[in-house]
């Protein structure tokens, strides 16, 4: 009981700085959108890094993660933690009695901080390399399905629901199974990543 109380006040103290941070980010996004496109597009043509450099970096990061935290990198758990915390706000402690949320505790844990870090890291990279721009829908989508942002947002949300169900059903996503599980030579993770791509390639060819 004491533990639960401490965990509760702990997550509230995180919210004290996390919510303003999100608001600042959102404010920045609106300001950028209002200001129009970046003034010097030529400066933003730095392009991506070599995929081999990036891959090596992620591999080394996985080793650091195992060394410091003895944990594999995986992102989808954070979504389950978050949906549980949101659920607790809506229906209260009933969430904590659900078998799934007994196994995956709805709290600000290591995985949740990792996911927050991904947001900050990608923002940092985009800001440093002039790729920070507010975009309602990706150009390829617009070319194929038209400029209506609402249509893209609806499709994105539907895709997200499937990713949420699928990643929890399979026990991991492209990072937890696709990189961390495979590099540990777990047979099930190799099978999972094969299924991710079979389902993904088949669907992409149907859509495009």
């Amino acid at each position, binding site marked *: 009981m004491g533990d639960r109380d401490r965990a509760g006040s702990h997550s509230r103290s995180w919210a004290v700085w996390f919510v303003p941070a999100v608001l600042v980010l959102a404010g920045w996004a609106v300001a950028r959108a209002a200001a129009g496109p970046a003034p010097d597009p030529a400066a933003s043509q730095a392009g991506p890094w070599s995929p081999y450099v990036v891959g090596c970096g992620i591999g080394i990061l996985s080793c650091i993660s195992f060394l410091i*935290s003895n944990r594999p990198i995986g992102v989808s758990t954070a979504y*389950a933690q978050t949906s549980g915390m949101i659920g607790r706000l809506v229906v209260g402690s009933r969430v904590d009695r659900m078998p799934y949320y007994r196994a995956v505790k709805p709290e600000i844990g290591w995985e949740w901080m990792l996911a927050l870090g991904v947001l900050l890291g990608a923002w940092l990279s985009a800001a440093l*390399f002039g790729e920070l721009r507010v975009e309602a829908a990706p150009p390829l989508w617009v070319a194929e399905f038209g400029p209506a942002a609402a249509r893209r947002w609806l499709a994105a949300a539907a895709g997200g629901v499937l990713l949420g*169900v699928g990643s929890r059903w399979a026990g991991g996503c492209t990072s937890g199974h696709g990189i961390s599980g495979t590099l540990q030579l777990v047979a099930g993770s190799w099978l999972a990543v094969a299924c991710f791509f079979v389902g993904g390639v088949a669907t992409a060819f149907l859509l*495009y």
Partner: protein
Amino acid sequence: MLATVRSHKKGQLAAGLLIGVGFGFLLQRGGVTRYEVVIGQLLLQDFTVVKIMLTAIVTGMIGVHALCAAGLATLSKKSGSVGSTVVGGLIFGVGFAVLGYCPGTMIGAVGQGSLDALFGMAGMLVGTAVYAAAYPALSGTILKIGDFGQVTLPELFRVSVWPVVCVVGACLGAILIAVEYAGL
């Protein structure tokens, strides 16, 4: 020393945050936080995603198994079954192509300003809640079909770890060379 670091709760949360920052930075630098790059991979036109994943697997596989051999880390294996891994994996794949991001890269996409990824994140939160609600019905039935536990490739083929590391490394290296040679 390691035990102290690993049992320090706030330090671990900070470590998770910093590792995430590095991961997000690299994903954005690699271009895989872009819808076009992910869809290009699923249409088999742009192999950036595969190149990053396979390079990360080879590097991490060697490093993590070396850490384990030195007694500095232990593997953290997910168990699986045909009913969970294959069915869940295929559902994931469909969502992967419809959204055009995966769970990690969509967070990175939000960080670079792609608003559609924000809707993907909202959808994914709903999806995990739906799964949590359905879990009691699934756990005793479909998730149990074809259970194979936490078996690793070395255990499956009854060989020691390092020969498998060498063979997998060589195979993935050959795939990367073939992809490069094909100009993809």
